[in-house]
């Protein structure tokens, strides 16, 4: 067996009246069991669309999905709808961003978690309930045998996300996709939830894809990082390398946008100017070039005419970057990070 999860040249295109929206355009990455991949990018960069494709959630919509998604050597895109449905929630599960809207308001938390278990296990409702109480206990819900009958609105935000995690892990999946699991939560609760995810990941040896725009979460959780921009990977590699020696101006921009508690308070944050491009009819050249502060360091008009290839960077094996700059590491440490 090769790698646990291999995503190869994944494309998710949505035909619309204005043209084809290329939400994900040729995305490739790999993931081992027990490891965590952080996917980072602004809203609309294709993070969630790509991960929904792994679960097959675009089936039955007008999305055109192509490429390969190999999970333990089985290409998920070639499975029938019924085969994919049986894997969904059992082999691959997902934790969603806003647990209040992701849980059904009219059913109890226990009912909704038990449903996830019952659809993949032929057991009695009583046995399922027992398993749900165990899971709620595992994710740290106090008095789980009582809270199992509560409705989502009776839970606090952190407890709702814990319940979502219990739902995602109840079938012991090998791959968990967490789509901005902490965005809707208080900072103190965020840390607890991330801690819980890490503990459970170690216990079950789960592979985790964590989608976020919070680089703090990446630093805390991820082994590898994939930075996405306009539906494509722009930098990919080991987290500790990319967070300290990024070689793509967009990654620099993301890092400079994060406030540093230790920094001089009079120092201003450096936001990335402009807005992400429309994914319909992307102009030729690097999609980030209109917002890039460093494109004048590239000779000629290469940045606006040619899309840079994803080429090996200098930071170890597997480090890839999509940029025309010849000596990005130098520029970063001299101009950006200082």
């Amino acid at each position, binding site marked *: 067996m090769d790698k646990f999860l291999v995503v190869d040249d994944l494309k998710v295109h949505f035909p619309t009246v204005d043209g084809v929206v290329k939400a994900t355009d040729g995305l490739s990455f790999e993931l081992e069991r027990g490891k965590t991949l952080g996917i980072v990018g602004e809203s609309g960069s294709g993070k969630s669309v790509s991960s929904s494709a792994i*679960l097959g*959630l675009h089936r*039955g919509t007008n999305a055109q999905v192509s490429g390969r998604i190999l999970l333990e050597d089985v290409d998920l895109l070639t499975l029938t709808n019924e085969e994919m*449905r*049986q*894997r*969904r*929630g*059992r082999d691959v*599960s*997902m934790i*969603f961003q*806003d647990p209040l*809207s*992701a*849980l*059904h*308001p*009219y*059913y109890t938390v226990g009912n*909704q978690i038990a*449903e*996830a278990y019952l*659809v*993949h296990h032929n057991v009695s409702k009583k046995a399922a309930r027992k398993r749900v109480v165990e899971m709620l206990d595992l994710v740290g819900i106090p008095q789980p045998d009582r809270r199992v009958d509560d*409705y989502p*609105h009776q839970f606090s935000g952190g407890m709702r996300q814990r319940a*979502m995690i219990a*739902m995602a892990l109840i079938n012991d999946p090998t791959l968990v996709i967490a789509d901005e699991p902490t965005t809707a939560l208080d900072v103190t609760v965020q840390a607890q939830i991330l801690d819980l995810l890490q503990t459970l990941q170690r216990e079950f040896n789960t592979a985790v894809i964590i989608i976020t725009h919070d680089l703090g979460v990446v630093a805390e959780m991820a082994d590898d990082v994939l930075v996405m921009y306009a539906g494509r990977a722009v930098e990919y590699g080991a987290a500790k390398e990319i967070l300290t020696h990024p070689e793509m101006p967009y990654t620099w921009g993301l890092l400079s946008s994060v406030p540093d508690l230790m920094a001089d308070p009079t120092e201003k944050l450096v936001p990335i100017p402009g807005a992400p491009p429309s994914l319909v009819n992307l102009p030729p050249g690097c999609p980030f070039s209109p917002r890039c502060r460093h494109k004048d360091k590239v000779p000629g008009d290469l940045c606006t005419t040619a899309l840079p290839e994803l080429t090996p960077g200098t930071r170890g094996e597997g480090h890839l970057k999509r940029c025309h700059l010849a000596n990005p590491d130098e520029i970063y440490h001299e101009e950006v990070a200082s």
Partner: protein
Amino acid sequence: MWAYIVRRCVMGLILVMAVTLITFVLFFASPIDPARFACGKNCSEEQRDQARKALGYDKPVYEQWTLFMGGLVKGRDFPADPELRKAAPELVTHCPAPCLGYSHLNAKSVNDLVKEAAPVTVSLAIVALVMWLVGGILFGILAAITKGSFLDRGIVGLTLIAYAFPTFFIAVFFLKYLAVKWQIIDYPAYTTISEGGVWAWFTNLLVPGFTLALVFMASYVRMTRAFVLESMSEDYIRTAKAKGLPQRKVLFKHGLRAALTPLVTMAGLDFATLLGGAIITESVFTYPGLGLLTVQANAASDLPTIIGVVVLAAAAVVIANIVVDISYAFIDPRVRLG
């Protein structure tokens, strides 16, 4: 919860009282003199005054209203004039509480008139309610799950036609073609259960019931379609899919549960409105319900009957409102009455 129910009932009573007061004021502001109708064409000024006194119309509006409200609570004796009652005790009619008034034209208390007419209206309303709920929800769901297809467009187009044709046209069309010209059905005539049995009662209600249901069905198809589409795009539907639930369970357990809840409100209030009488349908089919009673009373300036039916209809709407609100506490776990 009981405190809430009591408070709502008290508010409802005040509302019904206000409706009666407004009805009284409106009728006495009109130029119609009910005494002239009661007295007949060849009637001297003197006789007319006498008739007015006998009917109780000589008193000021607020006094008549107090008498009416007193009758609702305690019951009343007619004629209203105590001297007349003393002069001819054999002609006194007692109208027990809740007394809705006395129709001189029909020489009957309004309660008796209502008792005869209400079963017709209630039967018609129930048959229509069942028809439009079943048809509306069924076709609404069908249109929603085949959104954009020919079936969806066909259903939505048909609802437009059903909307566009007025009820009196549809009623006359059914009568002329189905009953008279092609003689597919017997000419519908209201039959009570005690007269003709349940089957005759039911079959005679089918055509008027369908006529009445048609316009409601059209709006319920469109509402159901919109609610289902809205509910199926919620986050909790994505969660349900991500669990690996089969599509029909996603739709029927998760989608419809939320989509059909607002229909409870609509159906409750629409049904209550019909309890005041389906004026057009009853008139065209000459079904002797509250609607036909109102039309006849209107034509004859039979004020007591009109006021009685208005009070009854208002009470039905007020009660339905309270029932719908209370039922919400059982349908939606997030609603707490208080």
